């Protein structure tokens, strides 16, 4: 069965600093990969997705993610975080023949001035 691991439960970053959130998946073939963000009191919003092609994917709000097949990873990055980026971030995967999204347990991001 497919699974997604987000090893960092909580990350604190200074405003203006760079950010990397880790995501690893477990599946034999190439999955479809997503990053969602959940602001406090809100539903989830899609940041970016990877289906095929260029392994560096650009998303909204200045985020990007890189698919690395050899490491089974899809880490999310942002060069300079803003206070409004404080939220919970979820990595998710769906695989061919199993259209259900499987989510990681999430990483809560705190931004300090």
């Amino acid at each position, binding site marked *: 069965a497919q699974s997604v691991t987000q090893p960092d*439960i909580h990350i604190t970053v200074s405003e203006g600093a760079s950010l990397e959130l880790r995501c690893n998946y477990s599946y034999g073939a190439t999955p*479809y990969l*997503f990053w*969602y963000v959940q602001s406090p*009191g*809100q*539903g*989830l*919003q*899609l940041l970016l*997705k990877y*289906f095929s092609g260029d392994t560096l994917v650009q998303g909204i709000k200045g985020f990007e993610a890189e698919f690395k097949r050899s490491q089974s990873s899809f880490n999310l990055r942002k060069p300079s975080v803003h206070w409004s980026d404080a939220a919970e971030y*979820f990595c998710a995967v*769906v695989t061919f023949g199993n*259209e*259900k*999204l499987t*989510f*990681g*347990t*999430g990483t809560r991001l705190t931004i300090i001035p």
Partner: protein
Amino acid sequence: DVKVTQSSRYLVKRTGEKVFLECVQDMDHENMFWYRQDPGLGLRLIYFSYDVKMKEKGDIPEGYSVSREKKERFSLILESASTNQTSMYLCASSFGGEGSYNEQFFGPGTRLTVL
């Protein structure tokens, strides 16, 4: 803009009550989903539907049922609420039907407390 709305943001019910959570989407999406979100567990799929009157079990269907009588509406039913069903419930929708892998759009969630 795609809009997914859920009938209540907060709900408090008593053990044993029958609970209905309603979800409506306005983008003519074929697929609709119900998740529950718990700290440390992420989102877990309860039920989903590819079309009107169709339903499929997700990963944690026990204690829940669903109804989809109209394309835009997907209801989650707790037949007899229990305290371990206290959670945040999120509804989502996507276009494409069975076999599609399109972006899911989420509602704001319903925080249900069962006393």
